[in-house]
């Protein structure tokens, strides 16, 4: 018998809401949205956590400017997330020293359960989950082990990405979606296609060529138009 499933809900007992940033396609901005969302909530002085569940390719630490080999989550009857920029941050990168982890799904599933079983978040208004692209072990585990979770689906306006959103709507995971963020929208984009999914639109974020320079610098990132758009989405989500 695996002892971890039951303890996972125990560990999240004092977490008011869990929001997982998801998408069928990669590269749509999940990591940037999840990280900025967590930073924006911390700016509002809300106790917030950020958990990078893109297990084989974690990158929230790059956005936050955290050097994973220089920091270790402290041990205290479990492990405590690392405090950075006013938020509590946990990532597998702390244990892989930032290197790649080639891993099959069964291993990803084990990592998920272990991370959630040992990390003590304490009281949080919100825990933001960054996830890998696609609908594999991590997304299925989130749906199974975190009953109240809400999915924030991210898409670009590209047909390849909207098609993938349409498909998500038709799966059993579709019911978890609390809203959609359209990211890297080109000028004049009209979200007609989204109608078919029935999902609520949270915000449309343009493509900002200068955003790259803010990676690793949360202070700068929070001052961008991108962060303002994320704030818009949060207002809709939290009301």
């Amino acid at each position, binding site marked *: *018998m695996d002892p971890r*499933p039951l303890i996972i809900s125990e560990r999240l007992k004092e977490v008011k809401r869990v929001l997982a940033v998801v998408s069928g396609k990669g590269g749509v901005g999940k990591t940037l949205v999840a990280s900025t969302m967590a930073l924006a909530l911390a700016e509002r002085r809300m106790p917030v956590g950020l958990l990078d569940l893109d297990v084989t390719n974690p990158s929230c630490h790059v956005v936050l400017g955290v050097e994973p080999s220089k920091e270790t989550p402290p041990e205290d009857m*479990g*492990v405590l997330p690392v405090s950075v920029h006013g938020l509590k941050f946990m990532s*597998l990168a702390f*244990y*892989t020293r930032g290197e790649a982890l*080639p891993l099959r799904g069964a291993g990803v599933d084990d*990592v998920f359960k272990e991370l959630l079983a*040992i990390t003590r978040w304490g009281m949080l208004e919100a825990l933001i989950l960054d996830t890998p692209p696609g609908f594999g072990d991590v997304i299925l585990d989130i749906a199974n082990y975190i009953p109240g979770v809400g999915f924030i689906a991210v898409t670009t306006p590209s047909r390849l990405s909207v098609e993938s959103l349409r498909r998500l709507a038709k799966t059993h995971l579709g019911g978890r979606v609390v809203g959609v963020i359209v990211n890297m929208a080109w000028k004049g984009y009209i979200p007609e296609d989204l109608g078919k999914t029935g999902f609520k639109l949270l915000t449309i974020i343009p493509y900002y060529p200068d955003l790259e320079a803010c990676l690793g610098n949360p202070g700068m990132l929070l001052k961008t138009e991108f962060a303002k758009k994320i704030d818009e989405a949060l207002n809709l989500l939290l009301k």
Partner: protein
Amino acid sequence: MHEWALAEAIVEAVCGYLSKRGVNRVASLKVAVGELQSVDEGILRFAVEELFKGRGVEVSSLVFEKEPAVFRCNSCGRTWRLEDLGIPEDAREAIHFIPEVFHVFTRCPHCGSQDLEIIQGRGVYIGSLEL
């Protein structure tokens, strides 16, 4: 000392099992402790015993069994033991927390692949439970 968190998981799982059956005593509980995670058995036992006490659960026989780690290479099919893999000492701490990160720090001694499967001896689980 994250062993305490693992102990909580064991106790939570056992208590969940017991409460479904409306009992609060266990005749025999076997906890398998996988070699890869190199858990401190003394601390784990202490924590499990304390937590059961706190929950008012009586466990007549509590046994911890070491499970040797065995790996199979998905590329060449060979099987290996932990000592064959030559995992660097300073990686053991990370593996202690999340056993799967051993993939980062080791290769198949025969073919160099990182696509190794852990067949047994990964971490902590409940081997058997008798009421």
